[in-house]
């Protein structure tokens, strides 16, 4: 088993014929992901990377049975693309786009609240189930089918954790990059819940950062319902207050936003917190021995 995406996933690429979409869709196909087609308004009826192009997501779903969508649409149009995917009944929508206005995401969140679609992102590396499906921009080769699930707000820091788990011989079930924006679809807690109920996942790596209350919320859930060991890392112990550190969501406002406060809550909830990012793989190996 795995979560969100697997070999059976029928993946649609929104923003298929643009430069980002073309490059990453090519990489996804090469990895073995079942990409069934793409959407670029106005280019319907043509073919790209050997796959059909459609004008609308609804059209694409009708002809291909797509159930997962990955979005590479520019920020000004990305909110619209997410809602289009949800309206067409896509179950898992992965939005890679960085730089979507926050008030657009407020509308998207409201729109999704009454529909059955799950959004991952935006501003995220995507989701990968090693050996089955890569839906995003992560380097496929560092992953290995295995025993540990990952949830993370960051891109390259996730790769770091993946790499350590691969080298420790543990591998990954599914790695979920939830994104660094203030408003995102799938939260840390949502992703942890999914991984907790996945048979194959034996342990979970939870990577957070300063800003917001998502890690604390996940930690309290784990304290109540957790059945597997969780290794936690929170980036930004040395970040100054009031400055945005790269991600729009990574900013220390109040006291509960700091790395120290978050780590304290995680520890209190039974999560194995590592202070150095270099220790993530090692700690998980100890726990799963």
């Amino acid at each position, binding site marked *: 088993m795995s979560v969100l995406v697997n070999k059976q996933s029928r993946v649609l690429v929104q923003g298929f014929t643009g430069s980002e979409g073309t490059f990453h869709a090519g990489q996804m196909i090469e990895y073995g992901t079942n990409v069934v087609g793409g959407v670029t308004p106005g280019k319907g009826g043509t073919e790209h990377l050997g796959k059909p192009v459609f004008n609308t997501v609804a059209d694409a779903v009708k002809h291909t049975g797509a159930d997962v969508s990955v979005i590479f649409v520019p920020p000004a149009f990305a909110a619209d693309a997410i809602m289009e995917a949800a309206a067409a009944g896509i179950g898992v929508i992965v939005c890679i786009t960085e730089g979507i206005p926050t008030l657009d995401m407020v509308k998207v969140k409201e729109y999704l609240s009454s529909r059955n679609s799950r959004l991952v992102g935006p501003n995220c590396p995507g989701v990968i189930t090693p050996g089955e499906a890569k839906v995003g921009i992560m380097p496929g080769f560092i992953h290995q089918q295995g025993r540990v699930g990952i949830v993370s707000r960051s891109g*390259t820091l996730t790769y770091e954790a993946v790499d350590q788990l691969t080298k420790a011989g543990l591998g990954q079930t599914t790695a979920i990059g939830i994104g660094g924006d203030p408003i995102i679809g799938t939260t840390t807690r949502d992703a942890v819940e999914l991984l907790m109920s996945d048979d194959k996942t034996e342990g979970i790596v939870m990577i957070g950062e300063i800003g917001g209350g998502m890690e604390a919320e996940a930690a309290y859930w784990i304290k109540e319902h957790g059945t597997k060991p969780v290794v936690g890392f929170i980036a930004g112990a*040395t970040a100054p207050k009031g400055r945005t550190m790269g991600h729009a969501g990574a900013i220390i406002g109040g006291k509960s936003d700091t790395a120290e406060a978050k780590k304290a809550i995680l520890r209190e909830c039974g999560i194995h917190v590592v202070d150095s990012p270099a220790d993530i793989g090692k700690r998980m190996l100890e726990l799963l021995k």
Partner: protein
Amino acid sequence: MNLHEFQGKQILSRYGVSVPFGIVAESPAKAVEAAKEVQAKTGLDRWAVKAQIHAGGRGKGGGVKIAKTLEEVELYADQIIGMMLVTPQTSAEGKLVRKVLVEQNIFYPGPSPVSEIYMSILMNRAKGRNMIMYSTRGGMDIEKVAEETPDLIFTEEIDPKVGLQGFQARQIAFNLGLSGDAYKEMVKFVFSLYKAFESSDASLFEINPVIKAADDRIFAADAKVTIDNNALYRHTDIAAMRDLHEEDPIEVEASRFDLNFVKLDGNVGCMVNGAGLAMATMDMIKMSGGEPANFLDVGGTANAKRVEEAFRIILKDPNVKAILVNIFGGIVRCDRVAQGIVDAYNNIGAINVPIIVRLQGTNAAEGKALIDQSGLKVFSAIKLQEAAELVNEVLKA
């Protein structure tokens, strides 16, 4: 993006929020002219002279004065323009004041007492909704109010499906203890303020204080306005309000090369791809006995040109005793980054601080070989732990 008070007030007034009438001046003579115009327009002979910098607490540092005569306007403008204004929100050396806002004084006499109110609009991230936060204790540090009298802080959450509703605006006015004309004015004020917030893609409005004047009119007496950077493309007029003087010159230069840079006070510079990994690298520097000198995300396309610019920017800081480069190659190939480092080293010349390079991911081994064979004084590592140990050794040496 942060705005000056006068710019924030321009945006507010576009949407019908009443603000004190005022004019910006860059010299004492212009301040006097502005004061005359304010007097002609409002009939009032008292003025507020307010320093325009991107920091709160200006009054505490002597950046806000009430003038009773035109001579005083000139005197205060002369004192404030050109001063290094130190407030609780600036650095110890303060910020250079280039402009003052000369405004009508809203503490004019009238039939009812003047009161100061706090009001802000911001995002409740957990719920993904905007909320209006307000308090009867205006004109004070809101964090202090939250600590001392949390029951005097109220919130109204806005449902994005229907927007701000009338009952919510009325609730706000009632909770603020207003009645009669002041109550009606406040309801209007709240609606206009929320409209301004949404229409300008703001991420924060903080109006502290909102003044209920002696004639029951409601004014935004101050305006701290932050606009969502991601939405500036659809507000070119607001984007044009950016004041580069208010930003760190090194950070401005970095942004020209699409480098995301934040200056810090430590002794170890760093260059990383990805914001999360950059923060984690800073934390690791601290654990290795150093202090991070900066945050620097070179982004997804860490090519030779950007690597070179990143080095130049980090090296401007004389406190930097070592530089840690941490690249996890995904789409970015490590051998290309390594070539960029070698080229930068040769182009810049005479780099006297040790450089530790950790390359991992795509073509990491090729990258490390390139660095090892270059003959440069660069320490290379593949594992994160090795890099941390090298930082520690270099600092001890």
